[in-house]
């Protein structure tokens, strides 16, 4: 046997403070009413730091700082000068990427391989990409000299903390807006390190403000009357509440919500690569991915073969210490999320689907869930309809391309889909009919700053990334 010795990435590259304040108007400040909460490492349940909890007054301060910066500095500044700051931030992110990656893995539980090889390169790429647009907005297809909106309230999830921050902040700033961003309460640390990077880049005070806290803080922020734009990524349930609260105001809104993506494998697919794509589709980031390929639709005549390969491949997944460079699947982000994954998985078993996980030893402390697949799933099962947001795959079969389309679209969501076939014409035929914002062909979970991303139906509206991503931050 060839056992890989532990290969832990060093924690010492991260300089964690015992406590963090709110980042408002260019400095770290204490919250007005002194509330705080703890951010823990989900792989060990160890407390990482004490985080300030922003109340309504703190949100008020932050929005006011953002307004002032918009009126006095950032709004009037030329696109070329805004670009200089964004490029500077992008470079600092690259320089400090190891530190950011380790911190992301500590706070989120995702494997260092992912934060190092996927998250951080994409974060930097996003800032570089939108820095390039800052002085070219007249050529973005929104008419001559499009104007920014003003102050953007941005609320982001815990699954890709720094990447979602980049998706929100980079286009907003490039277009000339200022922002108040609230990171998720379980993963605030990289956003706070990003605040330090803003200071290091000499970004004018108030252009970026970070307020930490839970749902109440988020509500105070999106409902604040001084906000011109709301951008939210997270659950469909919260997204609905935000849409209700914004309705009837002049605030612009973009929402990126849940998904229940179909990953469709035809009998002429390159099986070995399709299996890699299935694994990447659902086990990447512990399945904490809104566009995860959580429903595998496999053509019935190759189902046995695909499942056999999939199980063999799943047995190779290395679950454990997120900081070990050889870990493939890390920790579930929180006790609450673990509970939800367990509840839905138990419902899957109770409703008669067959559950399978490879033999794998899970650590005793922390939040863990073994990679799991359910076979014999039908469209009527809860695990085929509800977003699990964990490493749990539901396997369904189909007979014809038309049936595949029908089943893939038979969900209230419409964020992404995957098609695996060697036939190019079928890819195009399917992509025309799938009601999903992103359709991947012979790949899955591929992201690029130049490519727009967003959903149909209950997966939200608006696009992030690419030229299209500017639209949500311009007065057009």
């Amino acid at each position, binding site marked *: 046997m*060839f*056992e*890989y*010795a532990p290969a832990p990435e060093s924690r010492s590259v991260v300089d964690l403070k015992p406590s963090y304040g709110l980042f408002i108007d260019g400095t770290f400040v204490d919250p007005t009413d002194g509330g705080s909460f703890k951010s823990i490492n989900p792989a060990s349940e160890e407390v990482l730091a004490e985080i300030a909890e922003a109340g309504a007054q703190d949100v008020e301060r932050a929005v006011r700082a953002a307004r002032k910066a918009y009126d006095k500095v950032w709004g009037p500044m030329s696109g070329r000068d805004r670009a200089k700051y964004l490029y500077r931030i992008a470079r600092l992110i690259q320089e400090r990427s190891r530190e950011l990656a380790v911190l992301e893995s500590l706070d989120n539980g995702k494997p260092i*391989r992912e934060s190092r090889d996927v998250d951080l390169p994409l974060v930097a790429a996003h800032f570089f990409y939108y820095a390039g647009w800052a002085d070219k907005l007249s050529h973005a297809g929104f008419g001559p000299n499009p104007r920014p909106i003003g102050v953007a309230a941005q609320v982001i999830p815990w699954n890709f903390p720094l990447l979602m921050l980049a998706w929100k902040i980079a286009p907003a700033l490039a277009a000339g807006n200022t922002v108040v961003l609230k990171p998720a309460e379980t993963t605030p640390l990289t956003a706070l390190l990003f605040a330090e990077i803003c200071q290091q880049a000499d970004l004018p005070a108030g252009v970026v403000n970070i307020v930490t806290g839970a749902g109440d803080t988020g509500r105070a922020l999106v409902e604040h009357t001084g906000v011109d734009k709301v951008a939210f990524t997270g659950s469909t349930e919260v997204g609905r509440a935000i849409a209700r609260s914004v309705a009837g105001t002049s605030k612009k809104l973009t929402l990126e919500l849940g998904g229940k993506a179909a990953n469709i494998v035809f009998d002429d*697919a*390159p099986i*070995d*690569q399709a299996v890699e794509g299935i694994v990447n589709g659902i086990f990447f980031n512990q399945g904490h991915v809104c566009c995860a390929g959580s429903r595998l639709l496999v053509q019935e005549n190759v189902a046995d073969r695909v499942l056999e390969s999939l199980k063999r491949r799943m047995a*190779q997944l290395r679950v454990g210490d997120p900081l070990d460079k050889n870990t493939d699947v890390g920790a579930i982000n929180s006790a609450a999320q673990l509970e939800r994954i367990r509840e839905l998985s138990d419902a899957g078993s109770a409703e008669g689907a067959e559950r399978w996980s490879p033999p794998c030893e899970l650590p005793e402390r922390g939040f863990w869930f073994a990679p799991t697949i359910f076979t014999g799933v039908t469209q009527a099962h809860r695990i085929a309809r509800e977003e699990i947001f964990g490493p749990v795959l539901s396997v369904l079969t189909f007979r014809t391309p038309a049936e595949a389309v029908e089943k893939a679209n038979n969900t209230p969501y419409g964020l992404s889909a995957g098609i695996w076939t060697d036939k190019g014409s079928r890819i195009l035929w399917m992509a025309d009919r799938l009601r999903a914002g992103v359709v991947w062909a012979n790949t899955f979970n591929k992201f690029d700053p130049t490519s727009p991303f967003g959903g149909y139906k209950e997966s939200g509206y608006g696009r992030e990334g690419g030229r299209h991503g500017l639209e949500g931050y311009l007065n057009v």
Partner: protein
Amino acid sequence: MTATTTSARSELSELGRSETALRTFLHGLPGVDQVGAEQRAAQLGTRSIKTTAKAQAIDLAIRMVDLTTLEGADTPGKVRALAAKALRPDPADPSCPHVGAVCVYPAMVPYVAEVLRGSAVHLASVATAFPSGQAPLEIKLADTRAAVAAGADEIDMVINRGAFLAGRYKEVYDEIVATKEASGDAHLKVILETGELATYDNVRRASWLAMLAGGDFIKTSTGKVPVAATLPVTLVMLEAVRDFRAATGRQVGVKPAGGIKTTKDAIKYLVMVNETVGPDWLDPDWFRFGASSLLNDLLMQRTKLTTGTYSGPDYFTLD
């Protein structure tokens, strides 16, 4: 072996009787997506193999080396020196394992055989008008028989790429069957020359063709064309031997050859073997590296791990 694999095996052995059956079978194999295969290979290359795992991997890699010289300038003196090195790669350290085999041209086999006699190091000879294979079949078979008669217990043959690319699969198949027969008890490694086959679909088909025809090993390259072994090509071949064993119960070895020069490269291959086909193949009987300069890098890294310091290249023998 289960009843299913027995019947599958006999069905597969019938394929070689007809050009149509062979073509239908080979073209019915699942395709390989180039981007996906290369991405998977690159991902496996990011594994971090340190300390005890690295020491274990280095010793295994040394045991898997087919120490090779295939030059027009090879002489009895040159190949004897190489054979001596194969037996004791690191004269300063008796705990260092010997390599898997020495690989030479047929004319050099007798000189190597003298040195290796009585040892566990195998003697491989290239044959069948290596490296191009562009000779009449009778000559290729005579080449093979001569190598075996001179003492080779492993034959590295080349497939007829011209016939393969022209779609004459049966001709390729028949040549491999004939060479296998001419090899007698010697192990037959079938060189696909993947650099000339160009696509991964072709690599998968050629792998199956070689296995169906009775090859004991499939090998990537001669080392004589610009593109030799790569990680993605080896991945596709490993998937082929894995699927072939699942279908027939017979295990076939894999040998990437050419261009593997560093310990880091070798470890990437071992990780790929481990995670694609599993520990059954992590043995010199089932996986080999066709290489020459790789051995000294492995020895240097081995010394570094045991002593904690790097020695200069002058401390390792050049042969």
